[in-house]
């Protein structure tokens, strides 16, 4: 049996250094937060997800052979944290997305449309929602979206098209992609 009183930081991560870690991670926090926000629709939960992803990055950054892949990797970690956050909410019986009555009581058409779109996005499955958010909200090219989603470009494109049809059945793919 083994007893460990305190977990020590990974030696490899220590080798990277706090300043380097901050320099590498800081530019990724905002896109990570926007991704989490669009996935979770809850600013506090989004920040929690990014924070957790950043702890993961601290532990694992040194293991990355190619730090050029840091951005898609980090966003992928954020996406996983969002999936876990939604699952925890599901376990706790907390509903997700905006309340249904919001679009009814709001007087402003733009707010109505935004609320409806957020609700529609929240009802997509995790993998579909991730692709939609990365492509339409983070404005990432399809190749990068595929890297974050851990899928091929072709499969990601097909998933994106299917998701568009679910979000806007009346819209052609070409119109939606503009």
């Amino acid at each position, binding site marked *: 049996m*083994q007893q460990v009183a305190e977990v020590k930081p990974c030696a490899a991560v220590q080798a990277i250094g*706090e300043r380097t870690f901050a320099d590498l991670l800081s530019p990724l926090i905002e896109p990570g937060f*926007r991704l989490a*926000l669009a996935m979770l629709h809850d600013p506090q939960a989004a*920040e929690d997800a*990014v924070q957790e992803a950043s702890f993961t*990055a601290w*532990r694992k950054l040194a293991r990355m052979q190619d730090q050029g892949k840091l951005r898609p990797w980090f966003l992928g970690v954020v996406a996983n944290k969002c*999936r876990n956050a939604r699952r925890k909410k*599901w376990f706790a019986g907390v509903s997700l997305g905006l309340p249904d009555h919001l679009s009814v009581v709001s007087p402003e058409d733009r707010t109505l449309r935004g609320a409806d779109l957020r609700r529609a996005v929240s009802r997509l499955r995790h993998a579909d929602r991730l692709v939609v958010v990365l492509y339409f909200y983070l404005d990432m090219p399809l190749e990068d979206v595929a890297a974050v989603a851990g899928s091929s470009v072709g499969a990601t494109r097909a998933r994106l098209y299917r998701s568009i049809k679910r979000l806007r059945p009346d819209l052609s793919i070409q119109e939606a992609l503009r």
Partner: protein
Amino acid sequence: MSLRRDTHSAFDEIAPSMAGLSERVVQTVLTENSSRQRRKRLMFRVRGPLSLVAVFALIAMAGAVLIGGRMIHDWNLFHNSAPVGDSYQSQVAQLEAVPLHLPVFASQLDCKSGPFNSVGSLGSGPVYGDGGVQSQSTWGVYFSIVAYADTGVAGPILVRARDLFTGQPVVFVGQYAAGPVVGSDTFDGHTYDQHAELLLNTSTSDKQAVSHKFVWRFVSEVPTSW
């Protein structure tokens, strides 16, 4: 308005100011990391013959991993060799005799969570898992797990798990813990035997008639020496 503009508008409406966010997040990592418990990347392996119910599933908790191809291969091998009509105990013994072959990952980039089913549970079926509450003891971290399977499943399901980076075995305590006792741990005033295996049986599950599923709730533990 395009879908892209609509999406920006819809989410920018609910986005708070991000001023200072990067600094806050990074600083929190640097100041709190040493006091945090590392997450474990775990993998469970679930096997059994189809006549018994052969199942493979790698259920992982907190950054878990699932590797399918090798498991399918092993599962098929086992399924083809499973004699019909054996007693339950002999079926279990056959399952235990199958060696646990797992890959070792050097880089986190090679190690991806999944696959997940349509409701977000881990596994490719017919058994799926969801991670739950974590608790810390001096020995390791306890994970409360829920596994479930469709009611078409029958027979024993053997679960073994190992950390894919350290190779250290994951242990099980409580009702469904099985196999050799490999240690013990005291948690919340109680001492628990740690077993190397988990044995799930459809006859001992918490069958949920409404959802037509077998459900098992169990606890696994991972050492903190990662």
